[in-house]
């Protein structure tokens, strides 16, 4: 099989695996509808909580409600997407403990692809709705006050285009960073199935942290989310570029648009850890 046919086969298999998982999830319709509806309701409440804080404090470190909700919405859309596609990684602990991971290895398909295809979690739509709600409100508010954006297509088309591209790439990069985190967590299950909760600090913690402007945090935490686990770098910096915020003082504005690139080395790191874990598993060190 040549490389291209291999890719096409992999992609087709991913599609089929996802279809299976959707079919399986529809077996528990009541539970599914309840989760989605419930999650959506609670999303509205949480967003209302944010509105309440804005009405009390007026602004957030110089960011208006519209601007903050814009960032918050992007992150809270990216996280559930990543969470939904990487549910298989989430269940690695159980797969390794019960020995069911072996059955993935006796099939002629990459185990990573099989894990990705294990479940596309529909339940996360409820969470996604929260991000969409915030993002939608932000877009409406921002449309009413066009000067919230640093560049307009009329005045500086190139910069405005760069902002759009950077933000779109930032969204994808944000999904990628969260997915990498789930992947890293899965790699750890080859070493230990205990104590994985610690990685939640990075996944759920990262979601929470990146939903607000990074300038909210003390230096060490900012640095952490810019360089170590770049959930901040990939989405906060493009948002700063688009909204005309300083981002990282001292850096030229255009460089902020490059933030999404940080997702690439992080994905490689995740892949390297996973391969190391898989080698360890195959050598029976588990």
């Amino acid at each position: 099989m040549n490389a291209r046919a291999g890719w096409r086969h992999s992609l087709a298999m991913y599609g089929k695996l996802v279809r299976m998982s959707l079919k399986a999830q529809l077996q528990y319709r009541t539970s599914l509808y309840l989760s989605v509806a419930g999650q959506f309701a609670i999303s509205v409440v949480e967003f209302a909580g944010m509105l309440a804080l804005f009405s009390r404090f007026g602004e957030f470190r110089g960011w208006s409600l519209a601007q903050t909700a814009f960032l918050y919405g992007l992150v809270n859309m990216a996280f559930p997407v990543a969470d939904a596609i990487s549910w298989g990684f989430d269940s690695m602990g159980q797969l390794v403990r019960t020995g069911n991971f072996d059955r993935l290895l006796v099939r002629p398909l990459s185990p990573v692809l099989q894990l990705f295809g294990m479940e596309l979690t529909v339940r996360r739509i409820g969470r996604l709705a929260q991000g969409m709600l915030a993002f939608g409100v932000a877009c409406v508010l921002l449309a009413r006050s066009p000067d919230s954006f640093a560049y307009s297509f009329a005045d500086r088309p190139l910069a405005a285009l760069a902002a759009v591209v950077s933000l779109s790439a930032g969204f994808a990069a944000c999904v990628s960073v969260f997915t990498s985190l789930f992947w890293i967590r899965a790699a750890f299950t080859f070493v230990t199935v205990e104590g994985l909760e610690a990685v939640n600090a990075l996944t759920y913690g990262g979601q929470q942290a990146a939903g607000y402007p990074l300038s909210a945090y003390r230096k060490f935490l900012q640095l952490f989310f810019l360089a170590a686990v770049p959930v901040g770098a990939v989405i906060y910096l493009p948002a700063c570029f688009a909204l005309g915020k300083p981002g990282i003082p001292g850096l030229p504005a255009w460089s902020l648009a490059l933030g999404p690139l940080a997702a690439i080395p992080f994905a490689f790191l995740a892949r390297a850890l996973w391969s190391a874990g898989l080698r360890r598993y195959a050598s029976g060190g588990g």
Partner: protein
Amino acid sequence: MRPYLAAFRARARTVFRYRAAAAAGMFAQVAFGFILVMILESWYGSAGGAPAPMTMSQTAAYVWLGQAFFAMLPWNPDPELRDLIRSGEVARDLLRPLDLYWLWFTRTLAWRLVSSGLRCAAILAFAGFALPRLGMVDLALPAPAGASALACFAVLMAMAALMSASMTVALSCFQFRQVSAAGITAIFAAIVSFFSGLTVPLPLLDGPIAAVAGLLPFRALADLPFRFWSGAIPVNDAPAAFLFQLAWLAAITAGGRVFLNMQLRDLAVAGS
């Protein structure tokens, strides 16, 4: 009484076996606490708006106590009960000459108390002693507002533990309905974490959500006791808070028993 104590001790011992999980949970909780307390510090540092009903220091106390006692909140069903119900081994518990509700209540209480006990000491020590020494006095957990404030906090937390156990048993009973269990658990987790004040400190809210939060029992699990610790509620108001908890505890326990018996009756009819 003795068999219930034995059930309590047995469940407590099993929790100790998961020390690594507790350590990992602690790490995660500290990270969440850091993020949340810095976000709130930023709100407080922002210009304008109405004056906040709590000082930043009181808010920091609120956040760190929330992280420390997170494991005590009824945000998930007791995994042991869940497995018992799913595997059908619940039948074995029915053979014991004990009241099933109180048996489960004690076991769940043991699980909640021990797993939060394992975590809270370290988190409180970190937030209370380490943070000021790391130069983050503003973010640290302040000492209780006084001996009587601490006493009120302790009593209300004990009541919160009982309430949490009764809510957890009720939540676990939904596991009998396998088709909707996961959905209900997810909703419940979200409701508990918001309306107990873990997402946003409840005093900072206003308008209709604040009104709803005030009526629901979940604030008695965290928000109420936490505010006594920092003196955000004067000690004089403690009896009212206690009665609020007591009323809800009675209601949830009674409701939970009825609910459990309903599930068991359905089980008997289904013949499994």
